[in-house]
């Protein structure tokens, strides 16, 4: 079951400059584990030392926030898109 994970611009530098990656995974947690297994630098940007998703990083499955589904246990199926959306603040700066 191929699931596509969309990597946001600010985090691409930690993911070999890729904008997405595909994995065979049956839950969101499995897909993210494979992603951070492949790109170790990404792990500390997505997860705390305790292994929890950081609170300024939101994860969506097909447009729905996993916080309101089953969090990292949220099941995924073939063709699903997981999006990682971190907070960004730019707008006015030099």
């Amino acid at each position, binding site marked *: 079951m191929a699931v596509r994970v969309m990597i*946001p*611009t*600010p985090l691409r*530098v930690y993911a070999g400059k890729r*904008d997405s990656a595909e994995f065979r995974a049956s839950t969101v947690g499995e897909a993210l584990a494979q992603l951070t297994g492949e790109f170790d630098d990404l792990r500390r*940007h997505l997860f705390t030392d305790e292994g929890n998703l*950081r*609170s*300024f990083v*939101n994860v*969506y499955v097909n*447009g*729905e*926030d996993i*916080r*309101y589904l089953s969090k990292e246990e949220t099941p995924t199926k073939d063709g699903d898109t997981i*999006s990682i*959306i*971190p*907070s*960004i*603040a*730019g*707008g*006015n*700066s*030099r």
Partner: protein
Amino acid sequence: MASKVQTVTGTKPAQTLTNEEILRYSRHLIMPEVGMDGQLKLKNAKVLLIGTGGLGAPLGLYLAAAGVGKLGLVDFDVVDFTNLQRQVTFGTSDVGKPKSQAAQARLSNLNPDIQVQAFETKLTSENALELFQDFDIIVDGTDNFPTRYLVNDACILLGKPNVYGSIFRFEGQVTVFGIPGGPCYRCLYPEPPPPGLVPSCAEGGVLGVLPGIVGSIQAMETIKLILGSGDSLAGRLLLFDALGMKFREFKLRKNPGCPICGDQRTIHKLIDYYEFCGVRGEEAPAPNLDVPEITPREFKARLDRGDDLFILDVREPHEYQICNLQGHLIPLGELPRRVHELDSSREIVTHCRSGKRSAEAVDFLRKAGFRKILNLKGGILAWSDEVDSCVPKY
């Protein structure tokens, strides 16, 4: 959801348009979705823009042109040469002028029938509520996390909508917070990232057209709120990827446990947002690395003396193309696997643009056993200021 905005009362609302205004706004007036009623709503609306930079430029221009009766502009910054690549309110002759004043002059010239008020001040927990009080809608076009949480909290405390937009390199996010029953910024992101984990625009860059597009979407949402028509972005996060030219949409929900808009509210007044975000200043401070340094002048003197110095440039290849000191290029991110290219018996001077990345490189190399290694203090920027002004700053 079409959301009505509660307008600030006090002055008597305008009931008519002058003949000149009718001519100016004729392309609005002939649309049934705006018409005379809508144009009068715009004329009686009061919108406060936080930031007059990248996002503030299209916002100010379009809202002034559309006839929003009162526009407030909050910015304490001055126009910088590097702003002109995207902050299209300003011209070259504005460089050095306060942004709020330069924008006020430009917008008043665009539409003399509206009132444009400049607030040349930094938005703080002390002045935010008073500043917001006189406006119906707040539009967030700022550039840092402390101000974004401050704008959110002040809007929730006062019950005012917050039209939110943010950008990074070629990606943008837009939504509307603070609509009754809708989510707020803290529902979306309960906490900011720790300092230094997410690069700022100054480090990451931003494609000049991007704030134009994102700010224009904010302007559209603002006008829809005023007119009370259409489907607001409230409850939806719009993500725009300019390179892929894709718009994607994500559902936003009100978090029942939100500390400011949830059922069990724990925040009842504005707090210290720099403390909340873990920063004391505009941008995330450089990691506090205590590494040996050399000033540009000392470096120049040693080169002139013929000292054997190996110059290591840890910037990216596209930065090397802008200007360089003929150093050996190894981008900071590639240093761990390319460390064998360096000779630890030679004295090495490491540099980047500002001295921050090269300090990290020196720290890394010292831990790897390099002893004769120095960081060029202030990087290429300081070299240009103190030694060779022919080297361009960027």
